[in-house]
């Protein structure tokens, strides 16, 4: 049996092109594609914060809240079957709250608090409440995920996802304070195509 050898540079280039084409063909069959027709589509947007943010209030039973990162505008992309997209919002954050008070996250979609989808009817999720040690704990990493489906009347509609962090003076001592450290907010948009 004769083993072919490639001595000229032109032949080597041809071999390399052939190899790349072969790998490309195999890869297109092997790797799940995000935008193949007839499949679920899945897009994602992410926002991270590398600094510390603080919020507080004074007054009995007061509450303080602020966006944990600037709100994300995420498009429900054009697609053929319908105009609905499912949004999955995942938050990870280093958190801290004053002793015996409540620390919470609030999920807001297009300026309206999220109802259901993992949050209470006003979009709130309490990550801690009435813990006597929460004032001495410097960081407590917390994660939470909510999801919802939006049906649009227009194609490529943009939706604003806001997540707030905050505290409530549940021990009625006249104040509460909360901090947020390293934070990751990920919004996945899932939709179907024909």
């Amino acid at each position, binding site marked *: 049996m004769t083993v072919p050898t490639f001595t000229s540079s032109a032949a080597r280039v041809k071999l390399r092109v052939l190899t790349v084409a072969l790998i490309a063909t195999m890869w297109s069959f092997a790797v799940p594609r995000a935008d193949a027709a007839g499949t679920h589509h899945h897009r994602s947007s992410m926002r*991270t914060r590398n*600094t510390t943010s603080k919020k507080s209030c004074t007054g009995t039973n007061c509450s303080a809240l602020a966006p944990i990162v600037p709100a994300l505008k995420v498009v429900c992309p054009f697609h053929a079957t319908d105009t609905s997209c499912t949004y999955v919002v*995942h938050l*990870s954050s*280093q958190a801290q709250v004053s002793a015996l008070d409540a620390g919470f996250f609030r999920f807001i979609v297009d300026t309206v608090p999220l109802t259901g989808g993992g949050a209470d009817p006003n979009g709130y999720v309490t990550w801690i409440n009435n813990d006597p040690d929460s004032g001495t704990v*410097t960081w407590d*990493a917390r*994660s939470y995920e909510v999801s919802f489906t939006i049906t649009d009347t227009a194609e490529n509609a943009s939706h604003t996802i806001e997540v707030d962090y905050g505290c409530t003076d549940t021990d009625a001592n006249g104040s509460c304070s909360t901090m947020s450290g390293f934070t*990751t907010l990920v919004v996945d948009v899932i939709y179907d195509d024909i």
Partner: protein
Amino acid sequence: MMMIRTGLRTAMAASIGQLKLNRLVLSLLASLLVAAAVPGARAATTTIKDLGYVNTWVQTPSQRNIANCPSDCWIHLATLDVPCESFGPSACTFYIHVTSEVQLSAGDAGRFRFKLDDGLNNNQILRPTAPDGTVTWLAGDPDSPARYATSFAVVGTADADLYNPNHTIEILIGCGDTDGSGSCAVTAFFSSVEVRVYTTF
């Protein structure tokens, strides 16, 4: 003569002061330019939009334990070799999510450390973490010896390379003796690591 010398000195001091100020301003501007231009610079807030999902890699590590650590100790939790093999986009984004059932010595700090290609390439950045890839999941809790579950997610970016596509994502768990008792201990009983790969359209 004395006045001339004093005046000269004053003038020289003023010139030197001006020179120092100029240098300070220049170095500040240079730092700002470097921070803006170098991919490894750590911005306060980072946004990556409209990524296309490629695939997901998961791993469920077995139990890890650190006992009687004198100060800051780390133990390997998981390593995943994840390909970023793409002909179109020039980079991949990795969403790295770790969940662990943990137990920590009272009053100490429990931490994850995330590494992407061992931090060898400045184009590969993990956010949001300390510069060494560390994220504290609990610190200063007197009740931390009670088991509970914690999790955290970070985002990394890496260049696509057809001929050398694999990127190594390593996660460690560790503890620090932050209450000054002389030691710390941490156990990760059950853990799950998820790496999602995304590319730009």
